């Protein structure tokens, strides 16, 4: 090996290394931008996660809430949405939820809310929810892996969690991620 080829090689190595590192960073940043990679994502093992066992009262009494059995006995996929009347993103999400509720049954769980506040909140412009339960202590939400409202879960028959999103829903997200999964269930 002559001196000049060796020198050239030594020059190429750091350039190639920097290029590779740059490519890696670009891949990571572009994935973060289009949403396919989120380093802060709260991931759960997909596919086999079942809903936790729970039984919650409704907004007007213990009779109109729902429990794990009622949720898993559905013949069709159900979208479960955790919300609260004190949560601003939930207010913003409501319009989209009303649209989504026309395409899939939507069940709501009020998180750390007073029943009267939650009732006023969902009935103000027409409730998108087919059924509503109240998780006053927030302990059921923790069992579901909820870190903050609004969060939504797609529950397929048998009580399996097919999808979990920790942000407010909108039509685009619903069409892109949730609807294909819901349609895929027999």
């Amino acid at each position, binding site marked *: 090996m002559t001196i000049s080829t060796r020198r050239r090689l030594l020059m190429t190595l750091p350039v190639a290394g920097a290029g590779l590192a740059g490519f890696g960073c670009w891949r990571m940043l572009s994935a973060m931008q289009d949403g396919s990679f989120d380093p*802060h*994502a*709260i*991931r*759960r*093992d997909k596919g086999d996660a079942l809903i936790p066992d729970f039984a919650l009262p409704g907004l007007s009494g213990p009779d109109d809430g729902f429990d794990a059995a009622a949720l898993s006995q559905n013949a069709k996929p159900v979208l479960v949405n955790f919300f609260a009347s004190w949560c601003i993103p939930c207010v913003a999400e409501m319009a989209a939820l009303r649209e989504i509720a026309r395409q899939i049954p939507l069940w709501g769980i009020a998180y*750390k809310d007073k029943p009267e506040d939650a009732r006023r909140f969902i009935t103000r412009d027409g409730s998108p929810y087919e059924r509503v339960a109240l998780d006053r*202590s*927030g*302990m059921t939400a*923790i*069992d*579901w*892996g909820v*870190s*903050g409202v609004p969060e939504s879960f797609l529950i397929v028959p048998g009580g399996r969690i097919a999808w979990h999103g920790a942000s407010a829903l909108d039509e685009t997200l619903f069409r892109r991620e949730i609807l294909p999964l819901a349609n895929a269930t027999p």
Partner: protein
Amino acid sequence: MKKLAVLASLAIGLCVMALPARALDDPSEMLPNPTQEKRAEAIGAQLRCLVCQNESIEDSSASLARDLRHVVRQHVAAGESNQQIMAWMTQRYGEFIRLKPRLAASTLLLWAMPVLALALGGILATLMLRRPRKTEPLDDQEKKRLAELLREQEITR
């Protein structure tokens, strides 16, 4: 008599205020058994508060952190091991809830990075140190030129 009552209530108020500030907002949340409480605090220090993501649930005052502290204490009181409680948490909130990532295939590069960086540095350093320092001896022409240069310098001096 009235003055005494005011003084007494003031004293009581001061005593309450002087209670040590703890992560738990409500001291009644603490486990009665000090060893168990210590264990719960150690587990909580390893769990990320998912609201203010760079704090542990023991340090955070978010309401979710308060609820999670309560859950940890429930599990500790039920006699579960640290591993069982961490598994319960990661099952629900994913690996992200661990402030200290677990050694797994996906985190291998992360954990191996200090060793890798040290090895790379070592290799680079040995390569640099081993590089031959010998210079080529001057050939006749170069010797002549050097002698000329030295002579020129003598003359100008």
